[in-house]
């Protein structure tokens, strides 16, 4: 009888422990990471293994795409002694959009310093970067449903920055985030790289890391 009990324990205990472990790991994997500082969050985002930064080199041109979580944009606008209401209002404002930073460079220099071969091409590229990126950058699902770009910002750095960096804003729509991946494409900007594509795992967006704000 005692032997039977011992045997029963031998089977039951690992099964229960396994179930508990499974539930705990499932809960842990569903929760998003929270960081104490912006710097810590940036370090996490810049680790390629975490899936928020993707990089590619095509024909000597470096492309990198970074997903910017909501809290990073909130922190940018939040004053030091802001109230909880203000924090919630900002989170509400920014969580409706998806923010991506696209960086492009050649030999560690921005596109305007390396790609145009003459004054005309330089002018055309300035124009393209400032006003024409809506036609060149697209975000769409695997079934080719496009998320219309809301806005983008391409600041002129006059050679002071290493890559050409542009911030893109798209609407955050749950129906599109139910798909496994979103495709972010950049058409050729006159540098013979062809169309460059980044696949963004929607899971990463849904479980985006955040900041622990002190208020």
């Amino acid at each position, binding site marked *: 009888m005692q032997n039977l009990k011992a045997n029963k324990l*031998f089977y039951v205990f690992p099964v229960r422990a396994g179930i508990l472990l499974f539930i705990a790991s499932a809960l842990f994997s569903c929760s998003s990471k929270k960081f104490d500082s912006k710097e810590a969050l940036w370090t996490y985002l810049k680790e390629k293994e975490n899936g928020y930064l993707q990089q590619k080199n095509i024909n000597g041109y470096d492309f990198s795409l970074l997903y910017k979580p909501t809290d990073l944009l909130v922190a940018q606008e939040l004053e030091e002694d802001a109230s909880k209401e203000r924090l919630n209002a900002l989170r509400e404002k920014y969580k409706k959009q998806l923010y991506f930073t696209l960086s492009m460079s050649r030999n560690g220099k921005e596109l305007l310093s390396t790609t145009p071969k003459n004054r005309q091409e330089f002018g055309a590229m300035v124009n393209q970067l400032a006003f024409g990126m809506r036609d060149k950058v697209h975000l769409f699902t695997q079934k080719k449903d496009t998320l219309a770009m809301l806005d983008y910002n391409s600041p002129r750095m006059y050679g002071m920055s290493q890559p050409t960096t542009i911030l893109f804003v798209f609407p955050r729509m749950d129906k599109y985030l139910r798909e496994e991946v979103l495709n972010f494409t950049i058409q*050729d900007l006159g540098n013979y790289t*062809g*169309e460059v594509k980044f*696949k963004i795992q929607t899971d990463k967006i849904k479980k985006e890391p955040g900041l622990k704000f002190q208020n």
Partner: protein
Amino acid sequence: MKKASLPLAIIAILIALGSFFYNQNTSKLVYVDVNKLLDGYKRTKVVRAEFEAKAKTLKSNVDSLVAGWQKELKLYEKERAKMSKKELALTQELLGNKQQQINNYQQAIQQQVQEEDKKATQTVINDINDFVKEYGKKNGYPIIFGASGSGNIMYADEKSDLTAKVLEGLNAEFEGK
């Protein structure tokens, strides 16, 4: 203890089988035929058609300019007998300048067509590179060679050829399946 040994044995067998299949998969040297991928990828046809339409428009611009110039040349030849020496020189100079301009334009268009071709080809190559990389990672291949028919892979067993599988996946992804 006796009862516990059976599940343990089953687990051990499963682990052994799993590692056998995993190692069999990852130790394989496989390849894809790049030319076949380029030909069979449905986006190649789409991109090529777009390029050809663009090239046709550019070339037709040149053709209409050349036709206009030839018309002027014929008119000049027809009426040269009636022209004064000064008129003759002036028309010759005008036609010469126009011919030069058309030549320059033609060269610029040819260059533009070549550039467009380069961009279109690179787009397709990017897609193939991305997909093969992803396919290799997903299926645990340590290396996937790219055969281009120019002697970089002289012999490979048919079983090592992943081209058909990769092409199927590549086209399915392009068609949004």
